[in-house]
């Protein structure tokens, strides 16, 4: 039962994170197309967005490790 909970936790987190990252990169590419001279700003904001969203998936990973280890 422990393993099922851990699997569900990380699976749902990965689903949400992949969709969110796709949205972030999609809009970043759109913005670069609209305004190519501000690529530096967009790059910085893209990395910040990536780190925040990835952190959510890693919270779920921490939870799944805790579930596995009882």
């Amino acid at each position, binding site marked *: 039962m422990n393993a099922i909970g851990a699997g569900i936790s990380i699976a749902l987190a990965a689903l949400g994170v992949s969709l969110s990252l796709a949205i972030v990169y999609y809009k970043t590419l759109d913005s670069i197309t609209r305004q190519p001279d501000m690529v530096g700003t967009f790059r910085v904001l893209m*990395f910040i967005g990536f*780190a925040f969203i*990835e*952190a959510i998936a890693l919270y779920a990973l*921490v939870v799944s*490790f805790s579930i596995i280890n009882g």
Partner: protein
Amino acid sequence: MASEHAHSVLMHLSLHGVNLDVTKPVVVMWGVCGVVFSFLLFANFFQSFRRVERLLFDFVHDAFASSLHTKKTIWFSFLATLFLFIFLCNVSGLIPYSESPTGSLSVTAAMAVFVFVLAQLVGIYCHGFGHLKILTPSGIPWLMYPFIIPLELISQLARPFSLAVRLFANMFAGHSVMLIFLGLITAATFPLLKLLPFAGVVLLSMFEIFVAFIQAFIFTYLASFYISDAAHGAH
């Protein structure tokens, strides 16, 4: 999970019952401090070190100047040291026979609590007792205060938590996945089948360097944002 395996103890130390054992992450952190200190020391004497230090300062200035609305150079020194320390600590996990100190929750929690306390001290220094007004954003009628203040308090207290867990989980998860790949190399039967996990380990190591840099940058960026937010954010 954060205390899954006990670290090998080099030297037992304790102060009034507080456990201050010298373990492997402690030794690695001493090494990183030594590297940072000697790098900045040699920058006084050698032109090549000065060029690299100039690169670091330019990066810190360009990356964090927008979030830190002050020209005082002490903050740039603090942020540059913090960034360099966290980056080198993260990268130490990729060096054989040494581990990343940021892969244990104690180290990241200590740094997050330090940044949190520093932000509160800056707020109290700038605004005195009115620093508590950060809990009541502008434009809210005073009747809503009993609802808004607990929410804002929780969101302010969640900041050091998320700071600590983000850095810890990134480092821990990276090493866990690498352990799984290494286990796959051992578990593969044909020698040709061992090539795939080996390529995975190599690519993962390169990705780990990237993640180390990004997480150090994010930690430092959020530290500068929280400090500037406390200094002149909501008021």
